[in-house]
């Protein structure tokens, strides 16, 4: 599940990154807007009422207007008038026709903040009255906002709260949607992962992604069917080959043991018998590896004495007769092991048998093989070591690679590996253990198998 978790974690982080990016971009854009406005003279666009007012003075009963005042009015295409306390216009400049020269208090109150007959106006308190500057209709928008002071903070709070709630809702919806997608995608991704490992599964065919689930189920069913067909075929073949092989073994043994026959014929029979025995082993291995691969092998867990397990395997070899030049012994073993190993006796026996057989097969000149076991921190370690020729480092790396079982037929021209090591690795896997191959100085191969105590009740 780790890659899936990683995927969603990255997805969430990337979305947070995108949101931050938007935030930064917006701040930058607003900054650019203010800068552009500043550069375009927004600051100067506000009519200089105070300065303008100071340019109008009453001297000797008449109003003296500084020429600059007229320039300001001309630049802004505006007009101006001064209204005394009685509401009469006592001075004006460019006053449009149709505007009255006398205003009541209510008229002054009405236009002071908005418009005088569509002319947007601004007012200023002049020493001689009320200075009114009017602009061309449509050039200035005037709004007047008024509400009770106590509502101001409420509105401000509501605005801030709205902003925070909006951000919160956005994050909540985003996480909820991500969660929904994750829930829907997780089984699909897990299914794809299982497919890549050759495992089968079944997904619920409902929801928005039902179509994808159906497709994956079809793929899984197809894979299972293909695997079953292959497994059944191998089982069938291995079954059908047994009786003919019995006859080959039987008659070749008969010929081999018949003293009345010529020695050459008996030797040929011996070769047939030996090759048939190899075939017998191959059929058994093929059957076992197939069953392990497709979980068809019954797995019987019971407490085992690891030392007795080794004794039985070694005794089996010794009782059946070790070829000349080989020595097999139980070595350096903690004979006081009191802890049980929980595992399948048949499979573990087979595992050790295959490793010993491997040492024999790959060292035709003979060698010394030692088998040992130790229990440490609830981990049982089996070690099979030989004093043979060892193996090449490149091949060792391949052997220690969990995913592949190298075949000597493609790697080297040495003796065949058959399925022995593959079966060993499969048996180690079903016991949740690990296996390590290493060369011994000056020569030889050591195989260590660590089996954790996974099955103990």
């Amino acid at each position: 599940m780790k890659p899936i978790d990683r995927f969603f974690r990255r997805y969430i982080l990337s979305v947070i990154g995108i949101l931050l990016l938007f935030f930064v971009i917006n701040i930058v854009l607003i900054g650019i807007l203010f800068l552009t406005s500043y550069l375009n003279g927004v600051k100067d666009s506000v009519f200089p009422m105070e300065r303008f007012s100071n340019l109008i003075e009453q001297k000797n009963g008449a109003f003296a207007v500084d020429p600059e005042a007229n320039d300001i009015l001309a630049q802004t295409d505006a007009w101006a008038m001064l209204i005394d306390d009685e509401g009469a216009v006592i001075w004006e400049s460019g006053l449009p026709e149709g505007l009255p020269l006398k205003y009541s208090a209510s008229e002054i109150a009405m236009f002071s903040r908005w418009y005088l007959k569509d002319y947007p106006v601004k007012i200023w308190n002049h020493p001689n009255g009320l200075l009114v500057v009017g602009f061309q209709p449509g050039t200035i928008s005037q709004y007047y906002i008024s509400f009770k002071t106590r509502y101001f903070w409420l509105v401000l709070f509501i605005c801030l709260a709205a902003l925070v709630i909006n951000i919160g809702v956005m994050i909540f919806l985003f996480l909820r949607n991500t969660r929904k997608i994750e829930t829907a995608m997780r089984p699909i991704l897990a299914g794809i992962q299982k497919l890549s490992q050759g495992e089968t599964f079944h997904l619920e065919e409902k929801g928005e992604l039902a179509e994808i689930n159906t497709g994956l189920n079809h793929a899984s069913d197809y894979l299972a069917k293909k695997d079953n067909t292959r497994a059944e075929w191998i089982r069938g073949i291995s079954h059908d080959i047994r009786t003919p092989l019995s006859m080959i073994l039987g008659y070749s043994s008969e010929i081999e043991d018949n003293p009345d026959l010529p020695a050459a014929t008996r030797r040929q029979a011996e070769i047939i018998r030996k090759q048939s025995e190899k075939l017998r082993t191959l059929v058994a291995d093929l059957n076992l590896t197939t069953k392990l691969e497709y979980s068809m092998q019954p797995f019987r867990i019971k407490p085992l004495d690891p030392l007795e397990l080794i004794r039985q395997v070694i005794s089996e070899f010794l009782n059946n007769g070790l070829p000349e030049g080989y020595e097999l012994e139980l070595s350096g073993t903690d004979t006081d092991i009191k802890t049980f190993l929980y595992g399948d006796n048949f499979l573990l026996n087979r595992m050790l048998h295959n490793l010993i057989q491997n040492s024999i097969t790959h060292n035709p000149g003979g060698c010394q093989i030692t088998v040992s076991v130790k229990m440490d921190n609830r981990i049982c370690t089996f070690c099979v070591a030989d004093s043979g020729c060892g193996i090449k480092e490149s091949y060792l790396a391949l052997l220690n690679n969990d995913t592949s079982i190298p075949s000597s037929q493609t790697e080297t021209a040495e003796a065949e590996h058959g399925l022995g090591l593959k079966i060993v690795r499969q048996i180690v896997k079903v016991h949740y253990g690990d296996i390590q191959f290493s060369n011994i100085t000056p020569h030889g191969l050591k195989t260590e198998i660590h089996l954790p105590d996974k099955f103990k009740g």
Partner: protein
Amino acid sequence: MKDKSILAVDDESELLKMLQSVFYRAGYTKITTASSGKEALAIFRENQPDMVILDVMMPGIDGFTVLKEIRKTSTIPVLMLTARGEADDKFLGFENGADDYLIKPFLPKELLLRVQAILNRAYPEKERIVYLEASTVNLDKAEVYRGDEVFSLTAKEFTLFEKLFENSGRIVTTGSLCETVCGEFWQGYENTLVTHIRHLREKIEANPSKPVSLLTVKGLGYRLHIKGAEK
């Protein structure tokens, strides 16, 4: 034992011919064959053989059914000889009363040894005497004769000796011997086993400190060497 009558049942006639050949060459004289379950039951009822070698998968009545029919009236030894090598098939065979289960393909020597062992167990000789280098053991009386002396074997010594004798010439592991005496849960019995072995040696060996018949195989177990047998 070679005069015991054996019925071999298999639907493969060539295999039956081979079995006959193997047994005749080994010295057996009374081998009959049947190529179906029905024929096997008919011969069994008529001839009452001393032992049956039975295939499982046959057209008509299968081997397990034949075995069940045989077991209704007889306790004669039956060896299942079959291509069905699954553990569950083996269990089924033993549950139905099979004495042994041999999976094809097999070596004739292995079949002969198993048949011999089964016949020895099923039809023991009147006096089972085991000849050792320094002594003779009468298994029926559980007695050891060494020179002029006679020693009785205790129950556990006898059980151990019988196990070693059945596997004479072969290593019998410490665990197997302990299990023979104690049953499935034998751990912790190893030291007691050593004591039993020492007592056994005191009875069967001329010099228990230097045994020549009951040998220790270091780290593995023990091996009984019968006089005259190949080492």
